């Protein structure tokens, strides 16, 4: 479904990604792991269309994405939950969810979709009229995830969803990812919480200094303490 070949990215003159190759097949959870500053966020942003200077190729369902503006990539079925600035501060929970549908053809059934989305995380349903900025970090992350799911994307990219979040909420979140997978969702997941991520993933790529240095099934990686030690220790 997603086929990344020789992806490169620059911030100004600094060359951050060097020829990344990565595949995600339909129905798979693929995990991208690596140390701080390895280039995980930059990889997702390049796919989402938020990096100006990129090279190589990113094919999504057989069509090239590079060169398309970010909003067009959304319409191709790509959802991206960023690492930071996940929610819009001035809006309440419902308005944040509405934003997820604002450009989508599903907008017609907005009320129903918002009800469904807020059911994914009951905490959101309870806080539907609350200002989003007053939610806890974990609740904000749930809101961002629900907002991404509401448009029924074909591929969801999540950037460190468990970062800075209470363990109880992390469990709830990973339970959801498992459930989404059983319903056939396709997920590209960036996580520092390696064990948790590998437990639900099919395959994983390890990125270091902007290059993919290892690639294996999740099970194999989970068993490989040496590789984990080498590339995933923070």
């Amino acid at each position: 479904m997603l086929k990344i070949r020789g992806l490169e990215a620059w911030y100004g003159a600094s060359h951050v990604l060097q020829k990344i190759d990565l595949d995600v097949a339909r129905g798979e959870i693929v995990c991208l792991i690596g140390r701080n500053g390895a280039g995980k966020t930059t990889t997702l942003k390049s796919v989402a269309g938020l990096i100006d200077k990129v090279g190589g190729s990113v094919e999504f369902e057989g069509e090239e994405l590079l060169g398309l503006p970010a909003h067009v990539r959304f319409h191709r079925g790509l959802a991206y939950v960023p690492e930071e600035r996940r929610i819009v501060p001035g809006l309440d929970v419902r308005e944040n969810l509405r934003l997820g549908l604002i450009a989508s053809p599903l907008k017609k059934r907005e009320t129903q979709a918002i009800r469904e989305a807020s059911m994914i995380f009951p905490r959101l349903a309870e806080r539907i009229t609350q200002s989003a900025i007053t939610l806890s970090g974990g609740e904000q992350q749930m809101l961002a995830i629900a907002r991404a799911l509401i448009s029924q994307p074909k591929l969801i990219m999540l950037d460190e969803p468990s970062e800075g979040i209470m363990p109880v909420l992390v469990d709830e979140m990973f339970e959801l990812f498992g459930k989404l997978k059983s319903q056939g969702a396709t997920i590209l997941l960036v996580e520092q919480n390696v064990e948790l991520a590998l437990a639900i993933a099919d395959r994983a790529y390890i990125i270091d200094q902007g290059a993919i240095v290892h690639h294996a099934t999740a099970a194999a990686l989970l068993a490989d303490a040496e590789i984990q030690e080498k590339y995933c220790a923070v």
Partner: protein
Amino acid sequence: MAGLTLQLLGLQLFTGVALGALYVLLAVGLSLIFGMLTVVNFAHGAFYMLGAYVGMWLLMHGVNFWLALALAPLAVGLLGLAVERTLIRPLYGRGIDYPLLLTFGLSYIIVEGVRVVFGNTGYPVDTPEILQGAVNIGVGYFPLYRLFVIAATAVILLALWLFLERTSFGLIVRAGARDPQIVRILGVDVARVWLIVFGLGTALAALAGVLAAPLQGVIPEMGGPILAEAFVVTVVGGMGSLVGAVLAGLLVGVVVSMTSLFAPEMSRVAIFALMAVVLLIKPQGFFGRAGLMS
């Protein structure tokens, strides 16, 4: 005597609110444009002046006032769309000073253009007949037309509020002002939103111009002073804040009209003194958000 003074103050207060209404219309547009596009629009005063001239031209050609009130903002708003699309858009992502300098230059071009077409001297503009005269507002007789300016501004603000709070496009505007990246990844073509917001802002400036024309006539330089005042209003209210623009606009209007009652030559100084005091106490203005400029 005391009663008379109170009456005078009351009337002057209303005069200030009417003046403030014009500031509000200008400042709301400035604030919207700055909040969304991070463009400090130095051509805003020129669009205001252009609105007044287009309105006057229409009235001169027998178009009735109500139609002119709608057509002039429409025409200037369309010009605003063209300006954003062709001149400002290429400058996004280059820092705040590029569009600032561009609009600064553009304002000179517009003013010169009007001088070429209409001449250097100004024209008076008649108050429409049914809005002539004065009505008793409790504290005394107040010009009906000024009352109309206040009411028209209130209606526009209400419409704008409904537009922002109740429509999908309004939601996009509110979200995009906080975080353009999020609306982009949710499938919104932000460039189109910026275009429309710029057009809307210039149309509001032009509307203020048409409304002001019967009060003070038209003259090519009319946009300069009021732009400075509108900037004070946005700074006092907080850059990017609409509620701030409304409250500060009315406040500045009242401060100007009260000062001119006692010391006319001090009225412009008073505005800037007000701004200095507000900035000392609250550097972001009444409702400003920290870090908007960074």
